[in-house]
């Protein structure tokens, strides 16, 4: 098993930060329209800092794993820095790139996080 696959499966089985964020200050929902991944990312932004980030998803293992590593990464991070996280950071965190045709599975959480941050008034999406 590749490192990518092992990490994805580990996060899929034991996702970090899965579940609703009761005191969220902003939220966004995203979907991959053909494969059907659906995710909601919620953040609690105080001042310029992300104090908490959680996600809820009916999504594939790659999408769940990406959301898991991403929400853990941006906790405590300035909003502007979080908004500049690139897809390649997710590839690095998962120690590999998704197979052909699955790139959007990994980037959906990032796109949705950016929209949540925009909704919080922090940055442009």
């Amino acid at each position, binding site marked *: 098993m590749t490192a990518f696959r092992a990490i994805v499966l580990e996060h899929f089985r034991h996702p970090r930060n899965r579940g609703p964020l009761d005191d969220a200050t902003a939220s966004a929902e995203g*979907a991959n*329209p053909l494969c*059907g*991944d*659906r995710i909601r990312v919620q953040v609690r932004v105080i001042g310029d800092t992300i104090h908490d980030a959680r996600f*809820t*998803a*009916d*999504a*594939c293992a790659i999408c769940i794993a990406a959301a898991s590593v991403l929400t853990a990464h941006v906790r405590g991070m300035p909003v502007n820095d979080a908004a500049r996280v690139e897809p390649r950071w997710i590839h690095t965190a998962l120690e590999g790139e998704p197979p052909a045709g699955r790139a959007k599975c990994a980037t959906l959480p990032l796109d949705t996080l950016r929209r949540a941050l925009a909704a919080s008034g922090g940055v442009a999406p």
Partner: protein
Amino acid sequence: MTDGLIDQSEPLLSNEPSVALATLVAATGSTSKKVGTKMIVGESGRLIGGVTIGGCVDAQVVEAADALLETGGRRVLSISLDDDEAWEIGLTCGGTVDVLIERVNVHDIVDPVAAAHVAARASLARGESAVIATPLDGEPAALVLSEAGARHGTLGDAALDDAAAEIAADVMAGGSRIAPIENAGATRQYFFDRQSPPTTVVIIGAGQIAMSLTRMARELDMRTIVVDGRERYATRERFPDADEIRVGMPSEIVAAIAPTKRVAVVLIAHDYKYELPVLRALLRSPVGYIGMLGSRKRGDAVRALLSEEGFTDEELARIHTPIGLDIGGKSPPEVAVSILGELVAVRSGKRA
């Protein structure tokens, strides 16, 4: 009413001043229909439903109903299912059926039977069962008791209504039947007619099998709700027969429906991204049926994952997978027939 008769009877009821309502109130031997099954005979000759599988028995009911539309009132018609000639060649089922036939003035708000059916329909629309109690002879009267305990109408006095309410509670659980009530020194027979809301089938995955399911379920008196995360799939154009279409996160939609024992959830997306979260939302709910498309091996893998999360063997045994009866079909309509066959078997108590 049952077997989709409510929907079918709408055009008839709006065009007929009165109808004869025939209800199978008792049966012995091997009959093909449940006690409570109904037929409506219109003054114009229209027929909806049937109290037996057909043949000469229904013909006798229609004949009696036609006569009763002339004279008014009500009667119980007892019909033997034995037939001397059929007996000779071994083609008789045997037994008897008792059919209550009553004239109902459909648009008369003081007609107790018409009013009772209107009240029962309101109860069904709220998702509650209802029992209509009505005497088998004498002056027409009807009392409707809803699952939540509400009463509508009367059998004549408070003591009778209280006695009927006690029996209705038992009928609500066990099914329609005749029962005697003693009041003021006399005993009269009453029919307790249990009417239940239709099964709601929540379909997860708006693919081709779902399209067949929504078309066929309507014929079986089942409501359908199509659920998918993909707007392009879950469209009214693709699902003209669905009662509802909901797009969003399937596990959240299912949780919001708060499935009761009258709800069946069929997972036919064949995609773990929906199956696992929806199953997490269902396995500890009172939902009546959970079925999942896929092989036995795949079903075992899903159960193993959920077992790791703490679901018990008993909870995981609620998942019917492979879904449906084994009829050897492969095409979407054939798979839909197999799934609906299993749902009918569960509804009739032939399968758990």
